[in-house]
């Protein structure tokens, strides 16, 4: 069975949410404390949402120095799957595992609501169960969710097909880009697709009683994922 390590930093608060969603798709999920350096043969590592170190200074800026990050770097380099959600995404950008940065929302206030996304790339650990162009509605909950990078980096991200999902353009009945992200980017991945970062929270849209279940596809993808390289 697929082993999913959910990393807990001081201040993580969607750690349980990640475990529950992983269990929904039959994965074996367990916590790894940020001071540990052993991922316990994880197939997938999830950096969950929250406010690691209170998001003080910059979101993810302090957590990225946690002892566990070295193991995560190696895991990713070996082709292992790494998924950063919200604060986890911020940490991956701060750590340089993903391009760009996540800064204060354009409207300057925290935003919590469902948003509509379009799946841009499907050959990744977190989206392979979708078809390109699929639309999903999942909640966001962040204050620093505006994805930014210089024009050259943005062009490279697009050229290398590293946009994971985009917010939908505004329209009737649509909950559009909530934070002013460049080019409506809501998530990115590395070229190989084994390291992904996503600002919205699919883990909060998997349960039958929740408003939307379309987040489940992300975790079905995770469960179906085969490592690119045989793990050494």
């Amino acid at each position, binding site marked *: 069975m697929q082993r999913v390590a959910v990393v807990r930093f*001081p*201040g993580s*608060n*969607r750690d*349980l*949410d990640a475990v*529950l*969603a992983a269990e929904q798709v039959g994965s074996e999920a367990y916590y790894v404390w940020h001071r540990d350096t052993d991922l316990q043969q994880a197939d997938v590592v999830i950096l969950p*949402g*929250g*406010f690691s*170190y*209170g*998001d*003080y200074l910059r979101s993810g800026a302090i957590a990225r120095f946690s002892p566990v990050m070295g193991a995560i770097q190696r895991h990713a380099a070996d082709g292992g799957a790494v998924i950063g959600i919200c604060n986890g995404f911020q940490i991956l950008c701060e750590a340089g595992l993903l391009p760009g940065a996540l800064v204060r929302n354009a409207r*300057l*206030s*925290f*935003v*919590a*609501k*469902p948003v509509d996304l379009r799946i841009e790339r499907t050959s990744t650990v977190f989206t392979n169960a979708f078809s390109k162009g699929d639309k999903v509605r999942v*909640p966001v*909950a962040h*204050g620093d969710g505006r994805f930014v990078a210089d024009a050259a980096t943005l062009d490279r991200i697009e050229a290398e097909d590293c946009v994971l999902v985009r917010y939908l353009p505004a329209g*009737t*009945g*649509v*909950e559009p880009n909530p934070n002013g992200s460049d080019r409506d980017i809501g998530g990115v991945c590395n070229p190989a697709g084994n390291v992904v970062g996503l600002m919205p*929270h699919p*883990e*909060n849209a998997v*349960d039958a*009683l*929740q*408003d939307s279940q379309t987040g489940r596809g992300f975790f079905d993808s995770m469960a179906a994922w085969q490592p690119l390289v045989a793990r050494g």
Partner: protein
Amino acid sequence: MAEPRVAEAPRRKPAGLTAESFPGERSVTPEVVREHNLNDLEYDRIVKLLGRTPTLTELGIFSALWSEHCSYKHSKPILRLFPTEGPRVLQGPGENAGVLRLPDGWAVAFKIESHNHPSAVEPYQGAATGVGGILRDVFTMGARPVAVLNSLRFGSLDLPRNRYLFAGVVRGVGDYGNCVGVPTLGGEVSFAPGYTGNPLVNAMCVGLLREQDLMRARAHGVGNVLLVVGSRTGRDGIHGASFASEELSEKSEARRPQVQVGDPFTEKLLLEATLELITSDLIVAVQDMGAAGLTSSSAEMAARGGVGVEIDTGLVPTREEGMTPYEILLSESQERMLVVAEPHRVPAVQAVCDKWELTATSIGRVTDDGVFRVRHRERVVAAIPGQPLVDDCPIYHPEAREGDEARARRAARPPTQTRLPDPERALETLLDAPSLASKRWVYEQYDSTVQSATVIGPGSDAGVLQILGTEFGLAVTTDCNARLVALDPYEGGKAAVAEAARNIACAGALPIGITDCLNFGNPEKPEVFFQFREACRGVADACRAFETPVTGGNVSFYNESPTGAVDPTPVVGMVGLLEPVSARVGSNWVEPGDVIVILGATRGELGGSAYWAELLDFVGGQPPAIDLAAERGLQRLLVAAAKAGLMRSAHDCAEGGLAVALAEAAIGGPYATRSLGAALDLRGYAEAVALEQLLYGEDGARAVVSCAPASVKALTRLAAEHGVPVFAAGTVGAPNGRLELEVPGPRLSWDTIALRRIYYDAIPRRMAHAEQDR
């Protein structure tokens, strides 16, 4: 609500009540006594109790514990009116939070607290630390916070200062709860002139625990160790408790304590560490260092346990150099806990705290002489008999007399209109009124999905969460219509409980208990104390009728500002049990073709209505008398109908009456992709009453529900069994269609898209440039 306390206090005359003053400390003069908000009666009692003049440190201790905030000296006798018992009650008033029994060995702990004065001074930090305090009250009971709610009152949004306070408070509530990771599932906000200069900020927290993990803040076991856990102690908020117990004025401005700054990150670590300490049985007791910080937490834990304590302020980790025992004892630095543990457990306790990157420092021990003794290293700076310190504050029975002008307002009638407001425009005006309009601008700043248990978030009648791994859930709400309380405190108090229960029942849940936050003016004014007593009687009678015991709460007096006392605002926070959680019901129409049914009768009560307030600028008249039997019947009907799966939606009629309830059901939820039209014929309903009364009257015990055509018969039968009048008013119409009412006279018709825009834009458009307000 202090008391009841355990009785096995050692009554033997405590020895060694000697104490010396701390070097450099002012001596205790009449001025100093007055500065500490202690009157002659109280001071004399202190001297008798000690058999000597108190040291300044002791004076500070008394002024904190004998402040209104800690002693409830004006409210205790009135609070005894509340029903506090019932088969579900595991913990009633007197602990950090009340606790009710749930199915399958689960229990719910919940409590509401005010942070009005700090928020008036510094809205962001005041609101943030208010949330922090109520979270700690709940997790010190051994419960994991699973929901927060917030009940807010401000003056009109036309004034920049009010916009500034509103924006700052909402940001503070959000930033704190979001960071700790507790979803906000509900609340309320309203705006009225009476709150200008004195906003109300009440925060409620709901937590879940296994019954066997229930923890009480009672120190016992002579020789056990006291530890402070969490943040260092600074000079923050010294005298906060007494500050919260006087009117805001230049005088209080001058004495304003240093602002407390919240650190939600440390709070999150404290939460995890505390729950780990409790569930692994490492500690005897734990209490938040809230108002009056170390003083109240240690003295109250000792009194509850009927023991003494001795603490050494020299051991408390401080943030600043040279803090005196006085400052250390009275500091209200946030994110600190006081823990009692058996000596041999201390290393294990410290290990848990260290894992969560917190420090735990031993500062004292439990003693057998019943004395509250404080030393600073070698020097004893306070030695006070513990039980009297907490319990013997004089209790006052102020005069209660209704103000003439309140009686006059109730008797008054709105100015006779040359022309009645156009009924179609009237609805638009009401939906655009900030108090009635959608609070989406507010709750969009609050994380409502974290923890994966949210079933219905903000924007419906009540918030609903599921208890993972079980079949049941909880519904939560806060409610109070202060306009009604101001006009008729007794009926208004009943109405607050009734509206909360209606909100809970509309979600399909059975009301099981309440916590209350009683926000009033200066109780030494007869008209204020009248409002207080009568409102409490109303709350008490309603709670008896609904079998919803009061498990705790908070009294906030002295909510006065240059503009006078705030509207009396007894906020009711209610919890309901939803079995099964899958039976939950939302408040918006779902399906074209569904039948719209009005439950309950309409006499057309406009007294104290939003219609009169918003359209005629008239606040007056006799508010509706709340028929508790009818309310109870409606609640039970809604619960039964939900269980039987007969309803697609249910929404209570409250402010704005039937018309606003219909409009809200049509408009759809905050993220609905469309509104729904409807065609209703009200001509057969409430024939005797005039049109404006029919549409905008605020009679209680009513709800608008929709159901599949096939369910109408069963619902009607069920309603008859519960003695609730039913009227099938029409059917749900097309997406984005029109809302059409056949009434006596010309048909009324609204474009639901337009109504939706008005309802959701009302607050955002007023707050568009709030960043420039101060």
